[in-house]
């Protein structure tokens, strides 16, 4: 495994600047998640590292070596895609062994057998090894395709939304599993997603992308508690952070916009808010409020019941402040 670093990396497709001057370092053994909506440049960044796209400018280093001119095979990276593509005519065992049998690697068969068995056990599919790839459920197929990357010992694993086509329960299981596997193997992993739960729960570092630019890079806790813009603050947290004019609340403020996460609104004192609707989600109840025409979402005790149009008092707690242009004001 190796450290991977990007310096001033850019890539345009026609007039679209897909990746715009990104510099970042993925430490050896780190689990880095690139987070952003569709079109933010996540997948392009991944493809630039793997060599599936050519750089317009900047450099990519893997283990201290500049790989800008190398082919994907020479770079020694392993990729997992959103859509699992297994060889349907092969057994699970042969699918897993396939990358090791490549002419470049020339792995002896007994080493392959041992490796395949080990990975199958990590992924909890050893009993499926002799099944045809097509006789598996969706979740099992995706595990095999992750396994096909894991049998190799590349410089870095690159994964592009590998869980997004799975159902919610399986996704939750595989999240825990993937993180455990990465920690056990001590591997370096770059993972692309638009799902904030995946980013928060698995990453050692999150890189937040906005229109091709890397706008913040740090631990999940850092990004959640110390976002440097409204954009970043809105990426993490469900329900989303409330962004309001500071002037709604009395007192002096450090910026013109105030950011209040739903859990950071105190009830009982402060300004008047009208309850529009409460949603009982079981473990928590969401209150949709209106303050002088501004919608606000907050959380309350699961068994608390408010009729619509009740007026309650709210005040900010640990607010984040932002300038008019969305930058954090400190």
């Amino acid at each position, binding site marked *: 495994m190796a450290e991977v670093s990007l310096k001033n990396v850019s890539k345009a497709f026609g007039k679209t600047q897909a990746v715009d001057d990104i510099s970042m370092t993925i430490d050896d053994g780190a689990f880095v998640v690139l987070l952003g909506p569709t079109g933010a440049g996540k997948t392009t960044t991944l493809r630039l590292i793997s060599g599936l796209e050519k750089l317009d400018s900047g450099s990519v280093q893997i283990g201290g070596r500049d790989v800008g001119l190398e082919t994907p095979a020479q770079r020694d990276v392993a990729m997992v895609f959103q859509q699992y593509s297994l060889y349907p005519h092969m057994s699970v065992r042969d699918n897993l062994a396939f990358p090791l049998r490549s002419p470049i690697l020339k792995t002896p068969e007994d080493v392959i057998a041992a490796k395949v068995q080990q990975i199958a056990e990590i992924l909890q599919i050893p009993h499926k090894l002799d099944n045809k790839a097509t006789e598996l459920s969706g979740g099992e197929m995706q595990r095999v395709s992750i396994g096909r990357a894991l049998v190799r010992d590349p410089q870095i694993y690159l994964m592009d939304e590998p869980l997004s086509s799975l159902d919610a329960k399986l996704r*939750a299981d595989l999240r825990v599993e993937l993180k455990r596997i990465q920690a056990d193997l001590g591997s370096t992993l770059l993972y692309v997603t638009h799902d904030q739960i995946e980013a928060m729960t698995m990453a050692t570092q999150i890189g937040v992308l906005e229109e091709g630019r890397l706008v913040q890079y740090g631990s999940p806790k850092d990004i959640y508690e110390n976002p440097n813009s409204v954009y970043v603050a809105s990426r993490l947290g469900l329900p989303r952070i409330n962004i309001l004019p500071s002037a709604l609340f009395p007192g002096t403020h450090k910026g013109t916009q105030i950011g209040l996460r739903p859990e950071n609104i105190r009830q009982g004192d402060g300004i008047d808010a009208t309850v529009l609707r409460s949603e009982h989600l*079981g473990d928590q109840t969401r209150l949709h409020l209106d303050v002088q025409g501004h919608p606000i979402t907050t959380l309350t005790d699961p068994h608390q019941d408010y009729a619509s149009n009740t007026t309650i008092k709210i005040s900010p707690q640990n607010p984040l402040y932002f300038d008019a242009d969305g930058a954090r004001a400190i």
Partner: protein
Amino acid sequence: MAQIVIQNLKKQFGDFTAVRESSFTIEDGEFFMLLGPSGCGKTTTLRMIAGLELPTSGNIYLDGEDIAQRPPSQRDIAFVFQMFALYPHMNVRKNISYPLVSQGMQRAQVKAKVAEVAGILGIEDILDRPVGGLSGGDRQRVALGRAIVREPKAFMMDEPLGALDAEFREHMAEELRALHDRMGATTVYVTHDQLEAMQMGDKIVVMNNAVVEQFGTPQEIYDKPATMFVADFIGSPSMNFLKFNGKLGAAASDITLHNQSFAIPQSREPFEGDMAFGVRPEHIKLSDDAPFRAEILASEYLGTTQIVTLQTHGGEVKARAPAQQVAKPGETVGLEFDPATITLFDRQSGRALKSELNEGVLHG
């Protein structure tokens, strides 16, 4: 508008039973969710209410009138599908007017009606645009407009948000619910997404394998699940089941599992055999000196809270803890359970055992 009563409704396709003897009542003005995994019979139930399928037996009363065997055109119900089927060669206005024009309504009246609906949906500015170039959200609004404009007695919606991405779905869910609150029309909504059901529904019917497992308000179903299936299907992460074999007294207020005694809501029926001790993640507290020990397997950071996965004698459990609490994988901790929230299940049948907590909620 309309109350819908479903009585012993059953549907068979050849040898296959899609819906088995279901009964429930949808009150006037309710936003009513039919929730369950794929193949559970929820869509078939909806289609029977709309008249797109005829029931094998049973009754459907719309405002007291049995409509079970009537054709859809005589039911006065509007259907919104998952894929918004708009007429591609018509503009937005024509798409929305279509149901009225085909009823033979006068042009001036149609115009007024369409303007009113466009106002409700906030799409006045796109009325003269072709539907081809519209965004997903606007297409959906147009499809809704076409359903609303007829002023039917009730709306049937089959996963109308299923095809949208997560962020937009959240937004449309709020919009749809707000629209319902403005119009107050009885709405029956099919989904497999438990969060969507909890978020939008006044009442929920949970279905599994052609059977209604439970029927109630979202909070009721969450707090007092009638079966292990419901407990597992609702909530994320779902309810934990500690498996054990034991004996429950007729009016016991504690239960012994794995040699330790735990307080529970007072029991209303005796039981002996394979049971599951059901506890939700937020009702488990990590505490250093609690005697029920568990090994931490993983912790997942979620901002203000974290989900901690633990190995216990009764199997794996997930607990929701404050984010600042230290939970290192490999360490051993004690677990405390909030006694008032516990549900015990008969593991064989999956049925919740009656207690002080769920008394009156469960039927059968």
